[in-house]
């Protein structure tokens, strides 16, 4: 992140660069003498988010033990832009049937693509469908293992040997979605978060099939500016073992003839230092703290550019851990924090369902 790079915090260590219209690196609000607190684990932090709830201080419940996730198996998740959906509980879903489901879904896709022509279930089709469980992606005992849907196009030319070309990916998951899974009776499977990567037309086909087959509803999961600011505060405070990229906030100014985006980039260490001074108790996060954090950033920006960012709409945030767009598109960058990010998103999805 060349644009946002700024020297370490210090009275004179400020450099600003313009990106699109304006960008700023932030440093000086972080006092030198501020006690550095130990960072709480992200997972515990995120639990305290009032996502979808009223403001307030929430204390993190103890985590249930979880076997070490194999980073290889979840590596496909990282560094891809995922479009988020919330999904109501699936009715009549049976995990033992994944192969049958794959055949039916494959035939459905083929039938939809050639409307009017019947397709035999189970024959080789242009698009190959694979459904599999991702046992590594789950939080509590109550969570169902994640479900991965892969579409790949069969290579016709060199028959067997060549690999199928992946065309679309989507997966359902629930990470600490206990609030929902506790409340539904049997025959319902709670996987409230759905992430897709690939052409929207495939998302539509797969989504419609799931909706028809398991009587569920897909809904785009937008992220409100308030939740984005929670995310940036939380993720900015996370400790990373390797050199981190800049923390960036993108604002959009409403009601202009031409769209105006303001990008505000902050050196990650500065952002962390600021957050550390704001956060009072490790392990929990409050609405006030997030407000203070954002206000500090706004004040700094205003001092230099005479622009009140609080009047603009926060549309995107990026940190070394993940980036998120208000339209409901996320990119997860760091495998260590994968469960934490998914937990946040699960919570958002559940609040949209209930």
């Amino acid at each position, binding site marked *: 992140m060349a644009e946002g790079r700024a020297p370490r915090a210090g009275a004179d260590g400020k450099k600003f660069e313009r990106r699109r219209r304006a960008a700023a690196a932030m440093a000086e609000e972080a006092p030198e003498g501020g006690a550095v607190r130990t960072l709480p684990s992200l997972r515990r932090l995120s639990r305290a988010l009032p996502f979808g709830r009223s403001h307030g201080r929430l204390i993190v419940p103890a985590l249930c033990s979880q076997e070490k996730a194999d980073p290889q198996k979840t590596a496909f998740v990282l560094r891809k832009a995922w479009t988020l959906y919330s999904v109501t509980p699936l009715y009549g879903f049976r995990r033992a049937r994944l192969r049958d489901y794959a055949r039916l879904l494959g035939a459905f896709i083929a039938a939809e693509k050639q409307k009017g022509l*019947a397709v*035999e279930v189970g024959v080789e089709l242009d698009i190959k469908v694979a459904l599999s469980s991702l046992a590594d992606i789950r939080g509590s005992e109550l969570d169902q293992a994640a479900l991965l849907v892969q579409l790949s196009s069969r290579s016709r030319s060199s028959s067997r040997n060549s690999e199928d070309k992946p065309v679309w990916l989507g997966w359902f998951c629930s990470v600490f979605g206990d609030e929902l899974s506790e409340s539904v009776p049997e025959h319902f499977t709670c996987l409230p978060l759905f992430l897709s990567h690939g052409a929207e037309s495939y998302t539509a086909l797969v989504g419609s099939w799931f909706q028809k087959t398991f009587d569920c509803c897909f809904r785009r999961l937008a992220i409100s500016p308030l939740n984005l600011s929670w995310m940036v505060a939380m993720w900015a405070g996370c400790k990373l073992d390797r050199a981190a990229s800049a923390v960036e906030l993108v604002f959009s100014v409403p009601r202009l003839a031409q769209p105006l985006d303001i990008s505000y980039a902050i050196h990650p260490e500065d952002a962390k230092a600021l957050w550390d001074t704001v956060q009072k108790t490790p392990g929990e996060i409050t609405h006030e703290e997030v407000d203070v954090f954002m206000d500090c950033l706004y004040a700094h920006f205003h001092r230099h550019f005479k622009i009140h960012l609080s009047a603009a709409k926060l549309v995107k945030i990026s940190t070394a851990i993940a980036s998120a767009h208000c339209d409901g598109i996320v990119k997860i960058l760091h495998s260590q924090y994968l469960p934490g990010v998914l937990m946040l998103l699960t919570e958002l999805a559940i609040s949209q*369902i209930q």
Partner: protein
Amino acid sequence: MQRRKSSKTPKQPLSIPNKSQTDLSAWRKGAKIDSEKSLQNNQSADDQKCESQEGSLEQALSYFQKAQDSVAPKKKSVEQEHLDAVESTALEQGLPPEGFEILLKVVLSGRFADTVNTRLLKSLIPASVIPENSVVTAVSWLCVGKCSGNIQLLFLKWLITMFDFIDHKEQLNALYGFFFSFLQDEKLCPYVCHVLYLLTRKENVRPFRIRILLDLQAKMGMQSHLQALLSLYKLFCPEQVTITLPGKMKTYFKNSEGPWKAAITAVRQRNQGSSPLSQAVFLGTSQPQSRKRKWNAQLVIPASSASTKHLDEDREKSCFYLCSPNESFPVEQLQTFPQLLQNIHCLEFPSQMGSVLTNPLLLHYMNCVKDESIYLRLYYWMGQRLQEECPWCVVDNPYEEEFRSFLETVYKAECFLQEGFSACEEFLYKTLPLWDGVCCRSEVLRLVSWIPLSSFSDIKPYLFDPLAQLFFTSSIYFKCSVLESLKELLQNWLIRSVIQMDLEISSVNTTLSGLVNVVAELVHFVGWISTVAMRLENNSTFLLNFILDFYGTVCDIYLKYNLPLLIMPPAGVFYPALLSMDSVNLNQLCYIMYRYRANLVAAKENELSKKKILQFKFSNQTYQEYNQYIIAMVGCLWTSSAFQKDTHPQGLCMDDKLLSKTAVKEIKSSFNIVYHPAMMGCSIKFLQQICPGDTTLNFKLIKGKKWDWYLEYLYSRGLKGLKAFIESSISRVSQAARSKAGNVDV
């Protein structure tokens, strides 16, 4: 007598009655006694003619039967004569069941020239039913292939048209494979598809047949008849074949009714049949889409389609997961109430619960099945749709009209089930505070009436506060609509409470006192907004009408719903109604006060008799309030003493000095049903009737006997409420003192 067996009771539960093209029940009832006899009976006028026809038909039949055996064709003229006989009988009254075997054999064995065969086939119109045997024989002749292609084609068309007249279909179904083999004939293929479509049962759908059909499809391309058959296969075995029908398709089979339709109708009319030919094709698997929209955000209510939960191709592998996949009745085929009753044990809800909303049969079924998952599925689906499509919550949502009709559908389903949906309740709580009171107004307000009974303080901030805010700031029409829907709400709550008490469900929320409190809060709330509204709207007659309508329910709560609750209307409603300029409202007020009286008297009696220990009794204040009102009313309508006797703090009582300033003569006898502004029109008309010549309008004439006449006159003008009130609340001491006596009983 095979034809006497009713073909309406199939041997197998999985038979498909609704594939019937016609509803023949009425028709058969008429013909069941004895087809030939009934034919004659029906046309007693043409008896003579009939008998002769009967005779010639018999001759013709025996002729054709013999012709079957002999090799050499008979004389042309004889043949013509018999052909004419068959034709005329068929067209006039239809052929008897036993004629079919003979004639079908003749036609399909190819003995005669095609012109004869064609004429015979065209006249094969049943008077009652067609025996299955005859069709089976015909099919075997068809397989022999002695007749020409044209006759084959015509026979198939005939079979399609007459399918529902065949008395049984078991043996015919056993010939499924033979029909299937005819698919290879390019000319016959569309008609064979149609026959198969009518004949197919689940057990007929086999992988090899699917493959043959798919091969045909590959050879011939997209053909609507193949699509129809394949979608039927998909319906039965979604785990083996799938197809998406293009949205624009309307008809799947060419009109194959051929030359018989008119004749059948004519014969049926003659034989007192009724229902018209209808072809039930249930291929509604693809919804026409009006415009491009997000795939997951359509307010389209899903079509009922069977769930693909049971995959039984891999039965060996996965049989331990299956519940009972074999005998379930495809929900697409559920079209009549008898079907519902017959299959209720093996009916499965559609794969998408949302589709029950538009299907009354499934709503019936839903009412019978108490399964939590049904409601939960509906809850999630409806909740998401409502939230996502709500025009006043989602920015730039241009689909208000669609949303409106969706709300309408939801409301209708609620009325059907007599119960609100929880998703809908939640939606109202969430969105009413944001509502502008304009968007989908009547739909939203109607949905309000199905909000379930719950703690008033809980729902007040989400329901009553936003409603009150809109109520005070909106037009009089909006106010009336709100009052209307709150009246419905009150009624629904009261009905629910009766049911709850009957079932003696007593949870914390539904104790009697809890119930009474909630209802009381609602009534007080309406009293409050009504009082304010009367002032805001200048005592509008129109508005008052709606307010009194609400109190029409309130006054009868004790007697009608057995709930110990009696709340008088506030003075802000009572006095404007009492002094209303409009006789309809005054009459309604009289009726309401009469009902209050009946309720109070009943309560008092119960209290006195002490048959059971009463948990509740009305407070003295209620009686006091009632008495105050009744005194004012009697004063206004009868004794002209309202200004002196009214004791209500917000009442009409006026100082004598003040009254004398009005310069009205004889104040003490000048305000009663004769002079009341709402009654003035009546009293003038009455005067004109009793003294036609007098134009001075001497109201004082209305007294004594004429007072009684006047009352009768008022009652005859439809003022039933006034009548009930006067007869119950005013005891007329004696004829002489009638104009002064006013006595309140309670």
